[in-house]
């Protein structure tokens, strides 16, 4: 191995230590400080005492675990069959469903939650329309939160799992079918176990994400007094008695980081056994689709039902709201009030700058994330680098830091380095924050796909005298191109939608569309938010259609 090849993993580790390690240490520092970062004060455990010894904290922790677990049950029970149907079967309209999944991500969770409240409210929703007066059903509880949050994670989970399912050699499935094993049994006994690393990646990633998401717990939990960790963090940050208690938020965040650390160890254990899951070998194959036969209508029904819940109903509410002067329940009278004024005024809400900034952000941040994720994934999954476990844990922990705590930490770091690194208040801060925030997702997506590629392919290239770097570019990369594309696309969506960090790191020079949407929402201007959302969804729909046409063909050819 050349000296350059030996140094490369160390260089990647160094970059990651800068990007993730320093903010992580800063979070620890903030959690040990009272007052704001930068204000004088000694290091203390007071924040930990204050939050973990408070009465009711055990209930909050329990609620958090129950919420995250329930959410994952909802997510995985939809996502796993969905990914199989979309990637391994002859289900019709798959391309269209894939597009719908991308677009659905753009509906903010708070609007989705409001849509569901609107639909299920005994006073104004479907029960009222159907004349049902007494209905013992409410969304304002943990199952309601599981449902709304759980279905919102499905598209991202499908993206993450897709590449792994798509690239799989069908030989094992075919062997099962030849032996007379049914389709369902083959799915459970062959496909699920073979894609276990990808499923574990999804579970670990979204379990941790569920512990720190705020929207569904705030809209559906708080009205009924259900607190989870994210609402406790919000409580600390939105202190009513003076300045935010970032130290307490950091201390609560440390709990999520600790769980994230354990989850990461579990994940590293799985991916260390890469040989066990390698199903893409040197032998030529063409992924073959399973014929659904008489199960096709049921499969189609399942997918359509999901899209009704995830996209159609919330979108109809979204679209309906965008045409109204104010939000109201559908009626003949309301139809007479429809207007396009919310669309006509779109550029008046925030000016044109947020659009330009968003364009820069989604063009640069996902590209940097993927450029960094590919070497990280390769080192973690393919190399024998001694610290590959550390590297993966480091990447994963960036996901465990709640966004608000990460943003405050970065704000502090950018401030104290302002004179040497003058990026404070610029779009560069948002780019870096989003790169750190998206690394875990991108690497998990690429890892899941890379893990399935047998070493023999690279070994064959090396035996033929192809240098290591060229092998990665010419052999490994084409095989994981699907995962790279999915990862990139999802990071684009994540970056577009991210609002918490954009608010904290925001300045007059780096406003983006998500902060404009948030500002309109916090003013109660749902029709304006909806109009902006519909336009963005339409734009993304066309953009993704074009991208898939260009890149979809590219990686499909490579796989074939």
């Amino acid at each position, binding site marked *: 191995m050349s000296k350059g090849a030996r140094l490369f993993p160390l260089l990647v580790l160094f970059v990651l230590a800068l990007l993730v390690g320093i903010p992580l240490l800063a979070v620890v520092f903030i959690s040990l400080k009272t007052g*704001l*970062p*930068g*204000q004088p004060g000694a290091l203390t455990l007071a924040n930990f005492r204050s939050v973990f010894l*408070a009465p009711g*904290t055990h209930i*909050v922790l329990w609620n958090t675990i129950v919420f995250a677990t329930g959410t994952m049950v909802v997510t995985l029970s939809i996502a796993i069959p969905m990914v199989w149907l979309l990637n391994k079967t002859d289900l019709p309209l798959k391309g269209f469903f894939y597009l719908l999944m991308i677009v659905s991500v753009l509906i903010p969770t708070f609007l989705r939650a*409001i849509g569901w*409240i*609107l639909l299920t*409210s005994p*006073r*104004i929703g479907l029960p009222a329309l159907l004349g049902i007066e007494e209905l013992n059903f409410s969304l304002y509880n943990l199952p309601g939160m599981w449902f709304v949050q759980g279905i919102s994670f499905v598209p991202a989970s499908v993206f993450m799992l897709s590449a792994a399912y798509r690239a799989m050699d069908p030989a094992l499935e075919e062997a099962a079918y030849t032996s007379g094993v049914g389709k369902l049994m083959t799915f459970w006994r062959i496909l699920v176990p073979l894609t276990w690393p990808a499923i574990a990646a999804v579970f670990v990633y979204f379990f941790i994400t569920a512990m720190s998401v705020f929207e569904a717990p705030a809209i559906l939990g*708080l*009205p009924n*007094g259900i*607190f989870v960790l994210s609402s406790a963090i919000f*409580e600390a*940050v*939105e202190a*009513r*008695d*003076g*300045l*935010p208690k*970032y130290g307490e938020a950091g201390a609560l965040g440390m709990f999520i980081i600790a769980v994230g650390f354990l989850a990461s160890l579990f994940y590293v254990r799985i991916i260390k056994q890469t040989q066990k899951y390698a199903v893409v070998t040197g032998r030529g194959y063409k992924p073959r689709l399973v014929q659904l036969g008489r199960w096709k209508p049921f499969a189609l029904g399942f997918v359509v039902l999901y899209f009704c819940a995830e996209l159609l109903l919330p979108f109809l509410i979204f679209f309906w709201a965008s045409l109204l*002067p*104010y*939000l*109201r*329940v559908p009626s003949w009278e309301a139809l007479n*009030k429809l207007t396009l004024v919310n669309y006509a*005024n779109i*550029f*008046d*809400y*925030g*000016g044109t700058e947020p659009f330009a900034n968003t364009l820069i952000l989604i063009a640069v941040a996902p590209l940097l994330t993927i450029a960094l994720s590919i070497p990280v994934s390769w080192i973690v999954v393919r190399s024998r680098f001694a610290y590959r476990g550390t590297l993966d844990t480091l990447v994963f922990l960036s996901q465990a830091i709640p966004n608000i705590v990460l943003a*405050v930490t970065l*704000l*502090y770091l950018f*401030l*104290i380095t*302002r004179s040497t690194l003058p990026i*404070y208040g610029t779009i560069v801060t948002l780019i870096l924050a989003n790169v750190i925030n998206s690394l875990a997702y991108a690497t998990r997506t690429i890892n899941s796909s890379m893990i399935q590629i047998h070493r023999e392919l690279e070994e064959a290239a090396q035996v033929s005298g192809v240098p290591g770097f060229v092998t990665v570019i010419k052999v490994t990369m084409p095989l994981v191109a699907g995962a790279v594309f999915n990862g990139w696309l999802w990071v684009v969506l994540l970056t577009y939608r991210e609002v918490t960090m954009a*608010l*904290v790191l*925001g*300045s*007059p020079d780096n*406003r983006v569309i998500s*902060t404009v949407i*948030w*500002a*309109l*929402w*916090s*003013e*109660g*201007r749902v029709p304006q938010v909806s109009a902006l959302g519909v336009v963005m969804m339409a734009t993304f729909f066309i953009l993704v259609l074009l991208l898939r046409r260009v890149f979809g063909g590219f990686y499909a050819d490579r796989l074939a």
Partner: protein
Amino acid sequence: MKIINRTFGRSVLGYMIALVYLATASTVPAQSKLESVIKATQQEGALTVNAPSSLSASERVQFVLTFLKKYGLKIDVQIDPSGGSMVRKIAKVAQEIAVGQPPTWDVLIMTDYHHSILFKENLSQQFDWSGTFGIDKKYVAYKNHSIVFATSFALPAYNSELVRKEEVPKSWDDVVSPKWKGKIGINNATHHWARLAQVWGEKRGVAFMKQLKALDPKLGSNAEIFTKLQLGEILVAATLTDSYLDQARKSGAPIKFAEINPIIAPQYMSGTLKGARHPNAASLFSAFLLSKEGQAIWEKTQGQSSLHTTGTQTWNYVQGRDVVVLEENFALSKIDGLSEQADKIFGFRR
């Protein structure tokens, strides 16, 4: 109008005298001082203001042009309408100032409660408002750190399509009537209840909060409660601020105030942040907000004006009513504790 607060006086007569004084005084400012501030502003060449996100792009342009025209300035003014919590914006400037950096904004336009935090945390600058701009001392708050330029209102609000006229609350006691059980919403601006406790006394204030809690209210942010009220998921919001009422009026939404006494009146304040890059421009902008032109444009765009300026919509509205204006001492010593208590009673906090 009866303002229930010690700092701002108690009678209409007192206010009339103050207004006459202000009208006279503001036309004869300390001319040379004003000129030197204008000159210094021109030299600074820029200004960054954080204002409510409800200001549209065209309204911001209107604001800037009026300000520049009034003082004959040619400087770069940025009015940043970034949304999000006011407390977090304060935290951001606090962090910037703590590490010795200039704050992102020169001016923060916020409520009296939030300006009390700026003052307590030593994040704003003193300025001689009266000596420089001829501003009456009654408009000056927190030891010359902030000026009061507009008033908002918070009152119970109801959906007028779903609540019959005879059912509309006519007093605060009607708001806690059992008929609203499960049909009332409370927003997280719990300092509204602390403000009422300023005039009712702590005991009655806390008892009232408990009565509200017994109605099994829906909790949420201002925006969520406003949305639920429009949709009819709740029939009454225990309090809503007039910016939402203004929005409802403009869009035709059937949301109205229950006109009861006393009215909660949070004040909008402006002031220069400590370490601001453009301190003269910041002070001049704050003074502009109190000028005739500034008041007119704020009223046009935000639907609010100063309680203390004769003939404004706000002034007309409060005639014959009791108004709760936050006292400085109360803001600096009591409001936090009472708001926290309200948070716990309603369930916004554990």
